């Protein structure tokens, strides 16, 4: 039994798969979960990652056992068994991956639908990108270079750019969308965790690409209101920044 190569493949598959699963699930490579969408995406990622660990485990197990068992001994000039194929096996390893892939694709499509579904009482923040800065225009009618969001409120970000393509990304929200010249793109996020994050530009936009960041603050309604009042005051005193809206 223990020397049976098929049994060994099974053991290696389980061993490698389990070891990798432990690493993947405990490593904490994904950033903090700060939005409604992030949690759902992470769950999906975890499931896919665990399946992947075992698929990789299977591939490497077959290879390891082959190398151990079927390695050529010194001076052996013989040939292997002339097995040309096995239709049943080939049907199996075509149909099972097809089913897996279609299943994953359907699950992915449902998740996409879920995270993009319009929500009641959504706030719209307009985002203007330009080399190399972000400006945010709030529904309350003022602008700022910081993105302040109220915890638990669904937001629509409507994006424009004045020059080249940029990409609006807050890793903790897991959401991203390019800002493209000539069109308005949107992305929907519901922040759920108070804290300080950053908008990171994810599309190469020129010399200042790596510095094109803006602070994000997720807070409760009261601190948002306080900040908004202050920001509005700042804007009116600075002046010149009060053009009505983006084009």
């Amino acid at each position, binding site marked *: 039994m223990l020397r049976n190569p098929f049994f060994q493949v099974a053991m290696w598959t389980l061993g490698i798969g389990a070891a990798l699963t432990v690493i993947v699930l405990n*490593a904490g*490579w994904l950033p903090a979960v700060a939005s409604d*969408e992030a949690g*759902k995406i992470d769950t*999906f990622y975890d499931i*896919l*990652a665990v399946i*992947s660990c075992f*698929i*990789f485990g299977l*591939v*490497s197990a*077959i*290879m390891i056992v*082959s*190398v151990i068992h*079927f390695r*050529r001994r010194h001076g*052996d000039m*013989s*040939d*292997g*068994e*002339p*097995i*040309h*194929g*096995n*239709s049943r096996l*080939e049907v199996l*390893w075509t149909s099972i991956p*097809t089913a897996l*892939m*279609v299943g*994953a*694709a359907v699950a*992915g*499509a449902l998740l*996409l639908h879920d995270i993009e579904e319009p929500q009641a009482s959504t706030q719209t923040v307009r985002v203007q990108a330009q080399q190399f800065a972000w400006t945010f225009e709030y529904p309350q009618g003022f602008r700022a270079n910081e993105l302040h969001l109220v915890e638990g409120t669904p937001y629509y970000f409507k994006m424009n750019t004045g*020059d*080249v*393509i940029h990409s609006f*990304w807050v*890793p*903790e929200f897991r*959401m*991203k969308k*390019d*800002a*493209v*010249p*000539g*069109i308005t793109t949107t992305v929907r996020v519901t922040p759920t965790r108070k804290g300080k994050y950053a908008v*990171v530009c*994810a*599309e*190469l936009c020129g*010399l200042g*690409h*790596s510095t094109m960041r803006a602070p994000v603050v997720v807070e409760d309604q009261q601190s948002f209101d306080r900040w908004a009042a202050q920001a509005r005051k700042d804007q009116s005193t600075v002046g010149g920044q009060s053009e009505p809206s983006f084009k």
Partner: protein
Amino acid sequence: MADSVAVAAETHGSQQPSSPQRGGFKARMLAPGLLRAAWATVAMAAFAYGLVVGLRAIQGFPLFDSAPIVTAILLAAPMGFLVGIGGFDYWFKYMIGKPTEPEDHSGHGARSWRDYFRVNTDHKVIGIQYTVTSIFFLLVGGALAELVRAELAAPGQQIVSTDTFNGLFSVHASLMIFLVIIPVFAGLANYVIPLMIGAPDMAFPRLNALSYWLLPVAGIMMMASFLVPDSGSFSTGWTAYTPLSSNAPLGQQFFTIGVQFAGTSSIMTALNFLVTIITMRAPGMTFWRLPLLVWANFTTSLLVVIATPFVAGSQFLLLLDRALHANFFDVFQGGETLQYQHIFWFYSHPAVYIMVLPGFGIVSEIISAKSRKPIFGYRLMALSLLAILALGFTVWAHHMFVSGMFSWLRVPMMITTMLIAVPTGVKIFSWLATLWRGVLELSTPMLFCLGFITMFTLGGISGIMLAVIPIDIHVSDTYFVVAHLHYVLFGGSMFTIFAGIYYWFPKMTGRMFDERLGKIHFWLTFIGFNATFAPMHWVGLEGMPRRVADYAEQFAGWNLFISIAAFGLGLSTLVFIYNMIVSWKWGPPAPGNPWRAKTLEWQVSSPPPLFNFDEIPQVVGGPYEYGVPGAVHAVLNGEREKVPAGAGEAGGNGHNGSARQ
């Protein structure tokens, strides 16, 4: 075809070593070669310069503007080079009605190293020219990558400015794609495929030579972009998205135009492969008896002729935007930004398969020969290539899930993308099943193949994650993508390239390489590769975007680790280079068939005779009949009598038992 081979075989006997070009100064300047190429390049550059300045004078513009002048020179000077080197001589004579030179095969074969620096119509010489040129650019591209890693070893600015940094990774990617992976596969295939199908050469030897000489033009152009004063090299990535690239400084022109030359080279070679494979197979070599490397290059060539015109088109439109303000992509002038990405990826996703299918072919050859077993499920292996070809054209927009394109296209593209995993999985499982119960010889080419299977599986798995739109939204444009693409193109393509170079090195050079150094090279590469690229998955998931010269403090630890590993990986290449050079010069002479393989290229001497086969082979069975008692793939010179009566006829119908699964 049989007649032409007979003629070739006759002339082979009376082959005269051609004397190097002698004669007076004038004769030497006018003879095709590097000398004529040098002055013709300068002459065409001067002509382009004069033309632009002259036209500007007529129009009353300020005379000297570097952008139009450089653009004209970039288009004209390569023509001078190609005419000078002799790429068009035959056709020019034909065109103007002069008597063409009768083919005396003096442009065939290499008698000294100098023959590799001439227009040569021998597919074996061209194959080596391609391969060596690609390895040269591999070293250049690798050096650029090391500079990228040196800059990224710590947050903040280390050694280069942001502008230079953007140029480094842009040129690195462009060279690795257009001057290394695509052409090195074309080079190996150039050498091996005519031999494998029992042909004396490629179908269009002169076109083949011209295809090769376009390559150095493209490569030198991309490298030369670093010399542009003030602007430096192109720095918008190899993707060159508009409008960033439309408004980029002059260096961008070197990419936009360089791609045209690399692309033309690819397309011409692909046509050549298609015609060669369709029309020049030896008698009895039916499609179901073709070695899988031939199948792989057949599929790749179809991909190239269909897809490559699109990248040429995208860059041509960009060139018109930049040079003539055509505004195809300028939204403020009625153009459309995302249109560029659609055209670009309609090539550049199939390009991924152009860059890996020939590798699949190489792996099939080596795994079968080194496991002493027939390829498991031969027909499904060939059909899965065609499935990848078809599906490959239906997935381009998965590069654009966050681009703001019309949103309904995303889900269909996700489904097709994930379905490509099915034919790819079929190939991986078939290779594994070929290993199973074989007699595995773990020599260098085999080690690289096994490394390929595991690493490419990882690349495929991260590819599936990227195909799932909600995950892609998070990780697109991050280091996760950088990790994925290197697992596919380095762990995938480069590993197969190393495997192929080691495998056919004895055939190409007539010498054996140092096996011990080969194994050291493999292990250093395998470990260095994983240490470099595996952590990139993690920093990407954690939130580090790609193409940044600077990054947040939280990624500092891993980036330092990655940089150190990358330097080790770079050094491992030196082992390879040393092994290749020393073995080529001093290695022990190689027998005709050191691997005891069945395919035709191993049935002739190493290196093969000038016209490959003294007599055209007769193919009578499948290419991988290891372990089948009495099975023969083909009969060569004089052995025909030994074949049992009827074997030849059975070979003609393509349905004999040997290829059946």
